[in-house]
């Protein structure tokens, strides 16, 4: 199973939908709400996002080696290898 990491905002409805998508599909995932994190952790997250060319848009999803920015169920399912 690929490692799944989600960087989210507690205020973001699409981040909530992403979390729900993972739960509905029984996907084990780590997540951090950027806005609720300590400053040091925020800097680490932003640095990682910037490496992938992101300007701070959430949700930011890492599935294995693949990065998906934004809530897109089709892309997420494909990256996870989920059957339709």
């Amino acid at each position, binding site marked *: 199973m690929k490692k799944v990491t989600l960087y989210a*905002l507690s*205020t*973001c*409805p*699409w*981040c909530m*939908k992403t979390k729900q998508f993972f739960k509905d599909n029984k996907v084990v995932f780590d997540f951090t709400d*950027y*806005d609720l994190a300590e400053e040091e952790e*925020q800097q680490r997250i*932003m640095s990682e996002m910037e490496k992938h*060319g*992101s*300007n*701070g*848009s*959430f949700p930011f999803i890492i599935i294995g080696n693949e990065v998906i*920015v*934004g*809530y*897109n169920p089709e892309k997420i399912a494909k990256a996870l290898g989920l059957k339709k």
Partner: protein
Amino acid sequence: MGRKIIMSADPAVEARKKVLHNYFEKVVDKLGYKFTPDTALVEFCLEQEVKLEQKHGSPFCPCQALIGNREHDMKIVCPCIPFHRKHYDAMKRCWCGLFVHKDVTYPDKLMQIPPDEIK
């Protein structure tokens, strides 16, 4: 979105949501946008924006990060369409989906597309 409409228990938050709604409606109309027909999403995003305004001083986008750089952060004050015009026009919606192009009837089909994937 299948989400229940969330009304704040705080009358001050509800009052501010109405003020922002009226103001945003006029601004985005001139930009070729309108509020999404998804009323649950509108209620939720406005609620978050009022709370962000209470905490940080401006109604920032609830789906983009404040990074502490004023030049960056002021570009995500709602409605942030003018700062992301090409990107949002390509998606026919803003990043959080609060606003859609005026010709959009069914917003559920509009996906979030990162700027580097916009041709």
